[in-house]
């Protein structure tokens, strides 16, 4: 199939792997920021084909994983109300809140629906004027413009039974938090290509300069990741620290101006909590101005329903910060599986624990 097969070609992959091996003279620790990149590395077995000196550290780029448990509990409490239809991306449904997940609420009779686009949530609001439709709007800069668009359309059409429970997070502040941490091991980043399609990579140039760390914006197919890894290793070996763009078929330096404009009109940047990591300054988005009336946390009386965290062996926070690998967790594959998970990275389709569980459990057993 065009635009796919050429990025999954075995021969070209071999060449790049050889080139990476030739270029590598010392151990390097690189982080692929996005969970989809982690999954691609493991799904194609690339992680085990790279030279041993190139260590992959899996990043926090799994929006579902970093959504704070308090916000999931708010979604669960909304979904349990008879007057509410809670609408969400599918991936969010199985993530555990402090007591249960959204799929369980659905099984108990809550009206929980899965959509592929926020505009489908608007459609539900038009079709059910007697109900309150709450869209669980999560994600990085990739989903933010489309979710902002939903608010714009709702405002324009005067749809007053539509609300958004938002947990939007931004990548650069998270990279900054990782790079500036005293225990940081990451020496270079593979930056998320889809996020940069929206935002461009000017911010990443600043980060590369400030922390003297190379960054390569990477795509998501096997050859994208291999080429980006090669570019990153070359920079590391040469002692350079630039922001480079491997994913030029999608990413422009300045990003997508329309998408950025609509985000800017609808959202304001705020401090935001990341599950397992903590509050990162100026790392989240909140509905602002005329759009604030769609904010579910203002429109509904959401009492704190989150039970205090109990002792858990789960190391999701350390995994999300790249300090530990999923297989280092004592619960991995035993007490924590995709069917019965202790932490979100085990259920999300972008979670690092799920990637190891589905594709590389053998290795963990060895």
């Amino acid at each position, binding site marked *: *199939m065009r635009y796919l097969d050429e990025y999954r070609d075995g021969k070209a992959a071999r060449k790049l792997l050889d080139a990476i091996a030739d270029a590598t003279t010392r151990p390097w620790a690189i982080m692929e920021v996005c969970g989809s990149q982690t999954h691609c590395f493991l799904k*194609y077995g690339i992680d085990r084909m790279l030279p041993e000196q190139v260590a992959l550290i899996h990043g926090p780029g799994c929006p579902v994983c970093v959504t704070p448990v308090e916000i999931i509990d708010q979604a669960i409490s909304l979904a349990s109300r008879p007057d509410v239809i809670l609408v969400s991306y599918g*991936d969010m449904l199985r993530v555990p809140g402090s007591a249960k997940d959204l*799929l369980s609420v659905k099984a108990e009779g809550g009206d929980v629906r899965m959509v592929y686009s926020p505009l489908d949530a608007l459609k539900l609001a038009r079709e059910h004027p007697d109900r309150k439709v709450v869209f669980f709007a999560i994600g990085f800069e990739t989903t933010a413009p489309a979710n902002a668009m939903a608010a714009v359309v709702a405002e324009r059409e005067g749809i007053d039974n539509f609300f958004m429970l938002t947990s939007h997070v931004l990548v650069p502040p998270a990279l900054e938090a990782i790079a500036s941490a005293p225990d940081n091991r990451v020496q270079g980043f593979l930056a998320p290509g889809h996020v940069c399609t929206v935002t461009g990579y000017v911010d990443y140039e600043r980060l590369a300069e400030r922390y003297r760390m190379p960054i390569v914006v990477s795509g998501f197919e096997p050859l994208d990741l291999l080429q980006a890894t090669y570019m990153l290793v070359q920079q590391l070996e040469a002692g350079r620290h630039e922001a480079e763009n491997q994913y030029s078929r999608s990413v422009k330096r300045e990003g997508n101006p329309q998408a950025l404009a609509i985000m800017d009109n609808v959202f304001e940047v705020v401090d935001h909590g990341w599950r397992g990591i903590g509050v990162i300054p100026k790392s989240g988005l909140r509905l602002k101005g005329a759009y604030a009336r769609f904010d579910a946390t203002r429109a509904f009386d959401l009492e704190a329903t989150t039970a205090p965290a109990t002792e858990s062996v789960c190391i999701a926070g350390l995994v999300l910060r790249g300090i530990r690998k999923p297989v280092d967790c004592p619960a991995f594959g035993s007490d924590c599986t*995709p*069917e019965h998970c202790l932490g979100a990275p085990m259920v999300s*389709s972008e979670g690092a624990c799920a990637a190891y569980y589905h594709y590389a459990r053998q290795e963990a057993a060895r």
Partner: protein
Amino acid sequence: MTFFPECPLPLDEYPRVLLAHGGGGRLTQNLIERVLLPSFDNPFLAPLHDGALLDVDGGRLAFTTDSYVVQPPFFPGGDIGRLAVFGTANDLAMCGARPLYLSCSLIIEEGLPMEDLWRVIVSMKEAAVEAGVQVVTGDSKVVERGKGDGVFINTAGIGAVLSGLDVGSQRVQPGDEIVLSGSLGRHGIAIMALREGLSLDAAIESDSAPVFPLVEALVDEGIDIHMLRDPTRGGVSSSLNEIAGKSGAGIVIEESRLPVGPEVQGVCEILGLDPLYVANEGNFLAFVGAGQGERAVEVLRGYSLGREAVVIGRAVEEHPGVVIMKTLIGGERIVDVMSGEQLPRIC
């Protein structure tokens, strides 16, 4: 005092049934193995094959049942009626049996347009002719509006096992070659594309079709068939994992050999699905003796339903019970059982 034995599925884990318990993945497996199998424990059920094999008066019968709840009931390439006939007939074929007789139980929701019901029944009638079976008994119930979803169909089927044929996971052994009779994921993707309202250049049609003639052709050609399985719910990955688990063999498949049509691949990429986990309704997996794979493929390709048949892998001694895939770029990974339903990705 009434004694109530404790439910073997811990209630604190799942106090209620989830949709994923019916998804064909690990939760379905748990439900079958922890709740159903121990409750009805007997040697006919124990192999958990597509049907039970029963010795009756010197002959061998296969007996199976399946319920059909597909939504929407009409889709490109088929409808719930055709599915209800072919699905059960195919389960019999997977026992190595010629499908003979079917039952038909209808659970109809009040308010269903009579025309829809008629369409379903006519479709079942035509499908029965195509599959060479007769519907010999049945039942119909109507439930109040809102208590059903249009129409649900259950069919049970009886077939006669082809003489001398012994098919079962206990016969799978290292060296067996694994043949897939048709391309992946067409049924599941046809339904998914319709549900999601994807407007495609050409509608993807379900592969829903009776597969017994292909099985019979393999037997007639003297192919030594060890195991058959139609990869419906849960797709090829779930079927292979089940077979690896029960036989104790390891399985290796090659990604470059998997037949996936471009339109199925395209929809999978858009929705974030893996064709290995998507349901099929008109193909099957055959484990055949070492060295017989290519011959089996040749036989299958003589049929239009089998024109995309291919050897996708083999059973091995290493990694017992585990399915490994050699990836397109030369790496290796586990092919896992699906957990929960296949849900779309968000970015």
